[in-house]
C-alpha cells in the first residue's frame, strides 16, 4: 500500500506541476522577474499548494500516518550556514534555467534533451554533495 500511495502521490504531483506551469521555464523565470515583466501565476500555485498541506499538518496532531509508524519530527537544527548557502545556490540555479527538482523530473517525458541534460547535471550535483560538504566543513574548521 505504501507503494500505491507513493505512486498516486507522485502522479498527482506531476500533473499538478504540469497544469500549474511549474514545468514551463518561461512562467518560472517570469515569476522571478520581479523587477521586469512580472508574471504572478506561481504565487497562486504556491498558495494553492499550501491550503491542503496546512490542513494536513493540523490533522497530524495526535495521530499516526496510515501506513507508517509516525509523522516526521521537526528538524533539530536551526537556520545554519548549510541551509542559507544551499538555498542561495539552489536559487541561482533555479533562476538560471527556470527548473527546480520536481518539475525537472516531471518534464523528462516531454522536455527533450534540455530536461535530460539538466537532470543529469542535477543528479551529479546531488551525488557530489556529501564529499563537497565534508571538504567545506574541514576547511572551515582549520
Amino acid at each position, binding site marked *: 500500500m*505504501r507503494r500505491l500511495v*507513493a505512486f*498516486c502521490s*507522485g*502522479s498527482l*504531483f*506531476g*500533473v*499538478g506541476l504540469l497544469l*500549474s506551469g511549474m*514545468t514551463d*521555464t*518561461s512562467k518560472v*523565470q517570469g515569476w522571478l*522577474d520581479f523587477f*521586469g515583466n512580472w508574471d504572478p501565476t506561481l504565487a497562486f*500555485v*504556491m*498558495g*494553492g*499548494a*499550501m491550503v*491542503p*498541506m496546512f*490542513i*494536513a499538518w493540523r*490533522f497530524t496532531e495526535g495521530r499516526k*500516518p*496510515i501506513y507508517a*509508524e509516525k509523522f*516526521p519530527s521537526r*528538524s533539530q537544527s536551526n*537556520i545554519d550556514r*548549510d541551509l*542559507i*548557502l*544551499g*538555498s*542561495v545556490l*539552489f*536559487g*541561482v*540555479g*533555479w*533562476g538560471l534555467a*527556470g*527548473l*527546480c527538482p*520536481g518539475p525537472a*523530473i516531471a*518534464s523528462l*517525458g516531454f522536455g527533450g534533451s*534540455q530536461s535530460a541534460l539538466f*537532470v543529469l*547535471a*542535477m543528479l551529479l*550535483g*546531488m*551525488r*557530489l554533495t556529501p564529499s563537497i560538504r565534508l571538504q567545506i566543513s574541514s576547511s572551515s574548521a582549520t
Partner: protein
Amino acid sequence: MGLVGGLMIGLAASLYLLGNGRIMGASGIIGGLVDKSEWSSATDRIVFLIGLILAPSIYIFIFEFEADTKATTNVIILILAGLLVGFGTRLANGCTSGHGVCGISRLSIRGIASTVFYIFAGVVTVALLRNLWGAIQ
C-alpha cells in the same frame, strides 16, 4: 490553472504525509537514492518518481495538452544550473516542494528561511540575466 495545479500539488503532498508519514520533497526523494543515504525506503521513492515522470506525459497524450518547457538550449547554462540545483538543494536539505510547500505550511522556521533565500537568489539571478546579459527573452 495555477491555482488548480497548486491544489493538486498540495493534495499530493498531503496524501504522501498522511499515508506514508513522509515529507513530499522532490530533492530529498531523489537525493536519498542518488547518494544512497536513505536506501531503506528506495522502492517507495522509485515508485513515486515513476508516477512523477509518467503521469504528466500520459496526461499530455490523452488530453492533447500543449506542453513545452521552453528551456534554454544553452548547454553551459543547463549544466551549471543543474549542478547548482542538485548541490544546493541537498546542502539545504530541501527545495521548492520540501522547504516551500511542506515547510511553510508547517510554519517551519527553516522552511520559511530557505524559501526566502532561494526566491531572493532566483530574483537576483533573473534580473542579472535579463538586464545585463539579455540571455533570456
